[in-house]
């Protein structure tokens, strides 16, 4: 990144802390992805093989996260389950964010009829129960990964669009937007170059929050058979299964919970780090930098 190059070589303490959060986030998410992608190498057991004599065991050196009600190793299930959960939730998140950003931006920037129309759709979507929509999609289009994505995206874009629209309406009165307008910039250029940078950081923050919600709603969809089908593992459904045995063996939800927390946390750290990195006002002034130590 060019902006980074401009930063002082020494940098102050605050600056280092901010890059640190980004680095930790990236390390965390990469290790999670590596563990999940090569689950067949790292998992000590078969995730679906049932061993009734081992059921509901606590943490041990053999079973790091214990075993579930069918005696399956939870650690192995978390690793394999990550494949479904991370691919569905991350791809759903990316799609919702892109759709929400696009519609919110168009709605806020152009205003008028487009805005009125889109906002009525938003109203309808907000009043529409998620589960009912899921049922409709399942019954109409059948069960598939694509349908799961469609269901989640159709509902998920709404908060992003609303957030984006409200920021854009505010920001389009700013001098930088007006200045670009009178310099003859095309609408798409203004949206991408002037408005998007202002929208992106609150949207990133919202996205990290929404990711946790998405993981849980995907597990709820598994209930309709839209998500992962038993016995194949998935973090959300592992949590809801664990609910039943929570009083007998509370430790069985530790594994999937930890997995969800760590992946959401890592994205949070990345989001925060990116936001600070992208903030142009974080660049120190030329005269504030130590002599001749300016890079780039």
């Amino acid at each position, binding site marked *: 990144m060019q902006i980074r190059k401009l930063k002082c070589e020494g940098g102050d303490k*605050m600056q280092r802390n901010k890059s640190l959060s980004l680095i930790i986030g990236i390390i965390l998410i990469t290790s999670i992805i590596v563990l999940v992608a090569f689950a067949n190498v790292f998992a000590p057991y078969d995730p679906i093989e049932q061993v009734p004599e081992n059921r509901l065991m606590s943490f041990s050196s053999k079973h790091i996260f214990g075993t579930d009600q069918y005696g399956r190793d939870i650690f192995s299930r978390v690793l394999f389950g990550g494949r479904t959960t991370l691919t569905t939730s991350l791809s759903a998140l990316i799609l919702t964010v892109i759709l929400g950003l696009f519609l919110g931006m168009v709605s806020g920037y152009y205003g008028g009829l487009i805005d009125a129309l889109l906002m009525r759709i938003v109203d309808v979507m907000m009043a529409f129960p998620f589960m009912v929509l899921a049922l409709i999609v399942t019954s109409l289009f059948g069960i598939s990964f694509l349908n799961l994505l469609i269901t989640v995206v159709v509902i998920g874009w709404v908060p992003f669009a609303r957030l984006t629209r409200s920021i854009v309406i505010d920001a389009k009165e700013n*001098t930088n937007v007006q*200045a*670009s307008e009178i*310099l003859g*910039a095309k609408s798409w*250029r203004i949206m991408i170059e*002037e408005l998007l940078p202002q929208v992106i950081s609150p949207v990133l923050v919202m996205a990290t929050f929404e990711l946790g919600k998405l993981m849980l709603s995907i597990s709820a969809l598994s209930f309709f058979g839209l998500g992962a089908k038993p016995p194949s593992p998935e973090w959300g459904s592992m949590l809801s299964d664990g609910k039943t045995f929570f009083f007998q063996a509370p430790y069985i939800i530790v594994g999937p919970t930890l997995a969800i927390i760590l992946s959401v946390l890592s994205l949070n750290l990345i989001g925060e780090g990116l936001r600070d990195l992208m903030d*142009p*006002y974080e660049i120190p002034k030329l005269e504030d930098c130590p002599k001749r130590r300016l890079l780039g």
Partner: protein
Amino acid sequence: MKDIKLRVKKLNVEYIKDGNSFKAVSNISFILKAGEVISIIGESGSGKSSLAKALIGLLPVSAKVKGEVGLYPNFLINLESDLKVWSKIRGRKIAYIFQDAQEALNPMMTINDHFKQTLLNHFKMSDTEIYKISKEYLEYLNFKDADKILKSYPFELSGGMCQRVCIALCLVLKPEILIADEATSALDVLNQMEIINLLKKIQKDFNLSIIFITHDIIVARLIADRIIVMYNGAQVEKGTVEDVFKKPSSDYTKKIIYCNKCLFNLKDKREDRVLNNLSKPLLEMEGVNKRYKNNGFNALSDIGIKINERETVGILGESGCGKSTLAKCIIGLEDIDSGEIFFDGERIDKFRKKERKQIYRKMQMIFQDARNSLNPRRKTIELVNEPNKYMKIYNREDDNPAQDILKEVAINTIHFNSRPPQLSTGQCQRVAIARALMVKPKLLICDEIVSALDVENKLQILKLLLNVRENYNTALIMISHDIQFLKSICDRILIMQDGHIVDEFNICCEDNSCVGKMSTVNELLYVAKEMESQFVDKI
């Protein structure tokens, strides 16, 4: 010793944020005598407001205050005391007037409610008593119809009226010291002069000590007995008005006095400029009306303007009089409701977005807030090249004058690759001007472009604009609330009030003939001249 009202000894203010500390005020000491006006001068960011706020305990929690502040007689203020202690000092001992009076008043309350609130906080009084006292004070502060004012809400009054109401609210509590924090900065010359005269009057009548904070050394010259000059939080000069203006000791004071002198002298050179009255009209507006739909506010009513090629026209008015809306309507950022706008022989008010782009090649605008008008992620050279990127003005790279224009506006080559956050406000404004010059505009609209700048930068921008006018044959529309600034550059000044153009004044004619019927201009110019002559005499 008896007449000492306030003693400040080694006052330090430090802001602590995220573990980093920033010293806003360092080691300021002074004594304020009864009936004396001390003016604290400094550019924005020099720590003058922090100093004032420390004296009345209004600093945010992140600020650490050290030092000694003593009120007569022998009453030491604990600078970190709580609200209970402060509420006995605030209002009764020390009163404070803010820069933006309209914002300092509560929009949900009438002026009478403000008086009620203020008085009941300190005394037990009946409603009729309060009404009587408030009316008395308002009349003392030159309000003709005090009954009507008491029933109005702050937004129904003008900026100058609100400032007078604020002064009245301070006076009813009979304070010993009054702190005026940039109290006249947002006002036009006429209101500025009225407030200054009022402050002088109350200082005499109430034997009030005033700490007058300003960035404008002319205003300070008019009101103060003694002056403290602050720079970067430290005191660089202290003394009586005569001493400071006649024998300034610090380089900074010398510099600001020199710059102000230059501003006045600039005008004399301008008189060589012969304006060709026969030159073609460039912009014509007829019967233009604009009403904001959301609040029904009539921003412009029946505006008629004619601007010739190469002419410089000033638009003068208080904040909120519609001058910025006028600029936006001309360039097309706002649509007009009715009327006609002709530019360079074409009618432009009905233009759609695509057609408008052709106008942007001939007409450009520079904003007050230069820093925000530049994309903070781009390098200076990219910013200046923006018009070319968007409108494809120069086909060949060799023709591109971006670098030459940047040099012309005195941006150093080492800043070509800097981004706006790394530039000073003055540099940002010059980059914005350079960007507008890329299209070689026939008309350049400048919306309050110097009001955020200190006098040194102001002078630099002004000289730059004079060069631009000569080199590019550009007509300029200068929008400002500052008549001195307009006088030094404009050929004509139009005066706006509540969305109307009320008067027009031709500066080039020496006989000072007023085109309009009202005497506003004469009065304004008289006041400006008076301020000027008082200032120049003393240097």
